[in-house]
């Protein structure tokens, strides 16, 4: 199959979850995002890669309404995106466990803010502790945990909400290789189990190709979408597989940022 | 090495300068005083040049109140000075100072004031022995009284309460400094305020009424003129010389009230920074009896005068638990530090001149 065909096949008959049209963001005179348009489908795992400082984070901030857009719309289920209405979850690049809350209270945090009934809060928290394997550490505080455990707490906190959309901003950037492999596999497992829509932003091409069903390549300032690549490799994927390396090299060429 | 020698040089230079400064031709007498009538004589002597043809050199240090003045005595900062009864007694008791003269009788200028609407003003002379004290004991009971504790006004207050058959337990005593007492009383704090001059003049100008005083309640409050123990022993002649000057000023105050008033005004306004109305200056001389050399000698030697007055104050302190029995015994043993010898010499000197 050619790329063209692959792409057409991929897009056919998919339900749009998030639609981004003509998204533009200017800081004073500095144009950061320029006319970005794309869709994210329901239940899709989409990766966005691009060089550092290309506006990836600005884009996510627009999506989650932390900052107003200059122009363009972001619609979730046909309505303007708004964290108070839509079930969004966000895993940040920086560790974002809340230091004064224990592991279980961290997981409860989102549920409580969303004013879920107490029995549901407890049920979901237990489920999540089980899912990320932190039952034994439920009363620990973030300071007592390793980096990977903290990241798992954050993931559990977000999945506890059963979010429609999970946004992840370079969550594994600072972790070492083996741990990253482990958490990537875990993410895929949870995603497959729960079936939410994931938007994963990374600078690591290998990671993007390993995780995504589809990769969007962002170009250098101001950010625009340079290319879309469908990754149709079976899971679990293998880094050394020549087909994998081929896609990886393809994405690398598309970016050309070093 | 280079640095060291430079430092040595500086130190040497400093030592030399200090040496030159201290080696004066005239004998220096360091005098202390307060912004008060009894502070005037020395300042007057200096300003008016009374020491020009004398072989002494006066330096004058002003203290805001008795406590720092006595503290400075401990620091060896002055030789002779005039102050209130309480600091005088402390200087005698703690530092062995000598009481060599009575600057004035302050009994009337340590007084108690109320606002014009006070019920205390309704009656006068409840105790016929003290006809000038206002109020019945019931009127005084439970009143909040602003007073600088451990001071001469406190003594006057104590005597007033006694005259009415009351004790401090019957009223509410609040300790406060004089200036703050005026401010507080002006903003409707407390029922009675105990002040000494010149603060009493502010009270008068505000229309407050005097209800008692040391004099009215039979408490004799003499202003003390004291000399440091060491100085008295080492330079008795200098003490006499200065005391002579002091008495000269007191004599003028007794005889020429108008002329002295001009100087007192200068002293208050120009030196102490106190702006007082003319009436207050006049009151200063009217309310404060001043003793002549002869009266002084008598007061210092007669058993029922200075020593009795000082004992009255000491008893008050002992009653309050401020001084111990041992302290009291010390005071009595030294006859309250009273030393009439200097005043007698002044008397002799003056007699010889005539």
């Amino acid at each position: 199959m050619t790329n063209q065909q692959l792409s057409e096949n991929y897009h056919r008959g998919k339900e749009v979850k998030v639609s981004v049209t003509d998204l533009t963001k200017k800081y004073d005179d500095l144009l950061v995002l320029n006319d970005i348009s794309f869709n994210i489908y329901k239940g899709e795992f989409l990766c966005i890669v691009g060089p550092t400082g290309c506006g990836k984070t600005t884009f996510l901030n627009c999506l989650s309404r932390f900052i107003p857009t200059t122009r363009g719309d972001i619609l979730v289920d046909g309505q303007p995106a708004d964290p108070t209405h839509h079930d969004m979850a966000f895993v940040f690049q920086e560790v974002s466990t809340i230091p004064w809350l224990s592991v279980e209270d961290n997981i409860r945090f989102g549920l409580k803010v969303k004013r879920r009934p107490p029995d549901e809060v407890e049920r979901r928290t237990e489920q999540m502790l089980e899912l990320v394997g932190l039952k034994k550490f439920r009363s620990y505080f973030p300071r007592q945990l390793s980096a990977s455990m903290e990241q798992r707490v954050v993931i559990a906190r977000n999945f506890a909400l059963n979010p429609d959309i999970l946004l992840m901003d370079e969550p594994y950037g600072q972790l070492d290789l083996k741990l990253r492999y482990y958490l990537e596999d875990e993410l895929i497992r949870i995603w497959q189990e729960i079936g939410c829509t994931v938007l994963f932003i990374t600078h690591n091409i290998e990671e993007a190709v390993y995780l995504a069903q589809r990769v969007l390549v962002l170009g250098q300032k101001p950010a625009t979408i340079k290319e879309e690549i469908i990754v149709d490799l079976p899971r679990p994927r293998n880094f050394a597989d020549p087909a994998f390396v081929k896609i990886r090299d393809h994405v690398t060429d598309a970016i050309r940022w070093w | 090495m280079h640095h060291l020698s430079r430092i040595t040089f500086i130190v040497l230079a400093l030592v030399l300068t200090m040496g030159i400064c201290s080696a004066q031709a005239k004998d220096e007498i360091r005098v202390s005083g307060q912004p008060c009538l009894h502070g005037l004589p020395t300042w007057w002597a200096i300003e008016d040049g009374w020491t020009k043809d004398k072989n002494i050199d006066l330096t004058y240090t002003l203290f805001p109140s008795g406590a720092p003045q006595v503290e400075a005595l401990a620091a060896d900062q002055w030789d002779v000075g005039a102050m209130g009864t309480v600091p005088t007694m402390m200087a005698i008791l703690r530092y062995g100072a000598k009481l060599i003269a009575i600057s004035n009788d302050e009994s009337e200028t340590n007084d108690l004031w109320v606002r014009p609407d006070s019920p205390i003003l309704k009656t006068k002379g409840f105790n016929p022995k003290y006809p000038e004290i206002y109020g019945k004991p019931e009127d005084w009971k439970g009143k909040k009284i602003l007073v600088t504790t451990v001071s001469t006004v406190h003594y006057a207050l104590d005597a007033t309460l006694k005259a009415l058959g009351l004790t401090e337990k019957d009223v509410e005593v609040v300790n406060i400094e004089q200036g703050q007492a005026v401010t507080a009383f002006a903003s409707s704090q407390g029922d009675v305020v105990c002040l000494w001059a010149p603060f009493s003049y502010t009270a008068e100008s505000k229309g407050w009424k005097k209800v008692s005083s040391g004099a009215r309640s039979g408490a004799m409050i003499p202003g003390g003129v004291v000399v440091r123990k060491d100085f008295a022993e080492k330079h008795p002649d200098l003490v006499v010389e200065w005391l002579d000057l002091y008495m000269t000023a007191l004599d003028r105050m007794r005889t020429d009230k108008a002329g002295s008033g001009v100087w007192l005004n200068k002293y208050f306004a120009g030196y102490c920074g106190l702006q007082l109305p003319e009436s207050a200056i006049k009151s200063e001389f009217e309310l404060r009896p001043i003793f002549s050399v002869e009266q002084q000698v008598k007061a210092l030697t007669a058993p029922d005068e200075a020593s009795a007055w000082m004992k009255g104050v000491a008893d008050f302190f002992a009653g309050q638990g401020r001084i111990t029995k041992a302290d009291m015994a010390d005071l009595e043993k030294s006859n309250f530090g009273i030393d009439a010898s200097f005043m007698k010499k002044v008397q002799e000197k003056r007699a010889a001149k005539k």
Partner: protein
Amino acid sequence: MSTSNVKIAAKGISKSFTTENGTIQVLDNVSLEVKTNEFLVILGPGQCGKTILLNCLAGILPPDSGEVILNGKKVTEPGPDRGVVFQQYALFPWKTVRDNVAFGLAIRHMPVKERYEIAQKYIDLVGLTGFEKSYPHQLSGGMKQRVSIARSYANNPEVLLMDEPFSALDAQTRYSMEKELLSIWEQEKRTVVFITNNVEEAIYLGDRIVLMTKLPGTIKMEFPLTSPKPRNYTDASFLEMRLAISEETELAL
């Protein structure tokens, strides 16, 4: 290998620390040799005592037992013959770039003119020309680390000890710094001991990789790397080596 070729060597180094929670054995009988102008990478997970090992090599920390030999002589103190590049840069915030780079020379009381000439050479080498008068806080992380590298180089050490120098940098800067470090090293060869927890970085830079275990730190394995530099991240041999090494590391959860 012949011993005469050995520049710096650790012999049976052990080190432990006493804390409130008892004694922690950090290094257990670690021995290694680094040849002249060799680029040795010590790879290990976080908290495996590799920084402590480097501090022992530098002479900053005395080992409990064992010794460090430099040019056949025992090391007891830090010295200008061993330059250290720290993870947190350790630049002097009150000195300009130029004065930072010239620090080691100033310590030796070299005349200012000469000092600045040498400093300039290394500032140029690390590509910071034009930033001589900037203060560290005005620089990005990558630039700071360049200053740190220049500072070590300017002192002309025989051995360069680098303690996870790029781990605080973002990914893109990290890649370019790795590339740049290689080119600097090619231009001015030094004996380098480079510490990292990043497998790719290790394979990209090293002549030889020494893999350490978790606490107590011991040397688990050695991987000689023979392929020519600069290496390609997606080369089959690169990926193979990466797999081989990561198979040997433990998963730190």
